[in-house]
């Protein structure tokens, strides 16, 4: 187990810059999730930690040892690939013991380590099979097993669950979390699925365009997104954004409606802002009340547990997530209240959070 320090890392492919000045320190035993849209450079950063891409500028340290020039095999890390990358010509047991064999580990020790890992992951009945004869979920487990037999200093995961169907992904997600709790090894996990990020992470690193947007624990990112990108990326259904300007002490939206400025926030007259409202924080109220709005229901999407209601409000297709059933009927008016404590305000020019 170890800590990983990433300092001023930059990466360019030829002339194309992919990562800009990344700083991140990952504590001993911490589970850090790198999350962001496709192409933002998550995999590249992970592969630089693994030693599969060279580092254009900056430094990566594992336990205070600079590893920029260290070969992947000497970094003492294990990686789980999106495609699993199992050796097709070897049995499950051979796949798992390959790294130990190359390290000239004693035979009894190998058998013991493979047995323990197989037991943890429920692979015992599959040890003699080849990867071709396994289901996707079983392959995934073998890939995990291959990583844990070695007791590496850190685990690196590159979208390990994205080839699984939704149910299996949920199950494996819980299993990875349990595994991390029992092994406690430092882990860096790449995903573009924000639910995976929220559920697994001790700390989330949200990336966009090769730049770290925000680092924090999952609920911090949910409660206080640092900018428009994080606000829109974390949370499902996604946050509503309403554009407006500060006029005479209130925010006037594009359709002329007025939204009160939350307490403790100071805006300059005429400042362009974006209001963020999570669908689950829009309240449906019984009747017209002070500060409430009335809107016509556009679309109703029941998800089983709750319902997503689309209304036309503040010049916007506004989504509302409610747990009550039958409150919204398409074409009927709906009374809506916005809690000013639940509003997020962003400066439209810098896209950063205000307050």
């Amino acid at each position, binding site marked *: 187990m170890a800590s990983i320090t990433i300092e001023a890392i930059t990466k360019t492919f030829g002339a194309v810059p992919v990562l800009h000045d990344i700083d991140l320190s990952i504590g001993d035993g911490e589970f850090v999730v790198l999350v962001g849209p496709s192409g933002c450079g998550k995999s590249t950063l992970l592969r630089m930690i693994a*030693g599969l891409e060279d580092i254009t500028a900056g430094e990566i340290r594992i336990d205070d040892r600079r590893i920029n020039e260290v070969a992947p095999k000497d970094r003492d890390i294990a990686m789980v690939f999106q495609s699993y990358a199992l050796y097709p010509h070897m049995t499950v047991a051979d796949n798992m013991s390959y790294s130990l064999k190359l390290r000239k580990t004693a035979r009894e020790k190998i058998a013991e380590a493979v047995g323990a890992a197989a037991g943890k992951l429920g692979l015992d009945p599959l040890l003699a099979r080849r990867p071709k004869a396994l289901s996707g979920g079983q392959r995934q487990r073998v890939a995990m097993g291959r990583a844990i037999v070695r007791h590496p200093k850190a685990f690196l995961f590159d979208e390990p669950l994205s080839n699984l169907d939704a149910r299996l992904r949920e199950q494996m997600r819980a299993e990875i979390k349990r595994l991390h709790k029992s092994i406690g090894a430092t882990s860096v996990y790449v995903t573009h699925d924000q639910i995976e990020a929220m559920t697994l992470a001790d700390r989330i690193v949200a990336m966009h365009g090769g730049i770290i947007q925000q680092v924090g624990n999952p609920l911090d990112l949910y409660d206080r997104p640092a900018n428009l990108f994080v606000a829109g990326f974390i949370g499902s259904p996604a946050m509503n954004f309403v554009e407006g300007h500060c006029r005479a002490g209130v925010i006037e939206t594009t359709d002329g409606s007025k939204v009160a400025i939350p307490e403790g926030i100071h805006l300059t007259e005429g400042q362009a802002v974006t209001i963020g409202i999570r669908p689950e924080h829009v309240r449906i109220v019984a009747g017209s009340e002070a500060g409430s709005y009335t809107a016509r229901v556009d679309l109703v999407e029941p998800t089983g547990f709750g319902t997503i209601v689309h209304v036309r409000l503040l010049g916007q297709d506004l989504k509302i997530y409610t747990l009550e059933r039958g409150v919204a009927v398409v074409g009927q008016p709906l009374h809506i209240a916005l809690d000013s404590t639940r509003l997020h305000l962003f400066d439209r020019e810098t896209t950063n959070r205000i307050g």
Partner: protein
Amino acid sequence: MTSFSAAAPPNGDRRTPMQRLAARLEPWLYSAPVLILIVAIMLVPLALGVSYAFRDIKLLNPFSGGFVGLKHFRELASDSAFRGALINTLWWTFSSVILQFLFGLILALLLNQPFKGRALAQALCFLPWAVPSFLSGLDWAWMFNPVVGPIPHWLYALGIMSEPSNILSDPKTAMWGPIVANVWWGIPFFAITMLAALQAIPKDLYEAAEIDGAGPIERFRSITVPFLAPTMAISILLRTVWIANFADLIIVMTNGGPADRTQIVASYIFTQAFRRLDFGYASAIALVLLVLLLAYSMLIVVLRQTMLSRH
């Protein structure tokens, strides 16, 4: 269609025997044109050629053509030139195939590395394949000729030869001339097939192995070789059969000489048929070669099957 009728209820086939026969024949009638074509193009010439082996066919003798039974084969059994040709064939085939394969594999591995101008290098490396075999035979014959070619002088300068002479006229070394030409000419075939197979290997396997602690040699042994093995087997099989039959370079460069030292079975057939005009005897030799190559092919196919089923 057949599976449908097979699945019909057991009590149910109410068709007349004529109708059933018609249903049976229907697919054959549809495929008849192609079947007739295949039989006419492939099987008839083969059968004719085989029949020549048991007949006395000499082009210069108008009264020949009668059935002679196994006479040609009895002659063959005591034909020392044929026995020499068999041994030469083994030598010619296996050294050509092994060298072509080794150099082809090395070339493919090199071309699989990313470097600047790789596309151009690939195109250039595949050029020999496009040269007509007769032209490359002539080319190499001249290169080995001390009067016009540089190779004897280089070998002399390196101290390998005591004087710049033509290796093609020395019975001890003559076979190496066509073999070298053949290797040069055949490397691209292996390089192309191996490169295609190499490019089909997922890159992340190598990365996983690198992290697992495998060095370049270990990665080659445990990933590249198992992935290439089926391709290697099938391409070596094809090339072996093909080269054993391939007399162009030998005919052009040495014509079987000196003293029959480069005579392979295929060139011996050519000599019998077109120099001595004894088509019957030539067909008998061809038949023996066919049987030998068939046996060899079966062996390799069985080997490949067992290898594939192990994976």
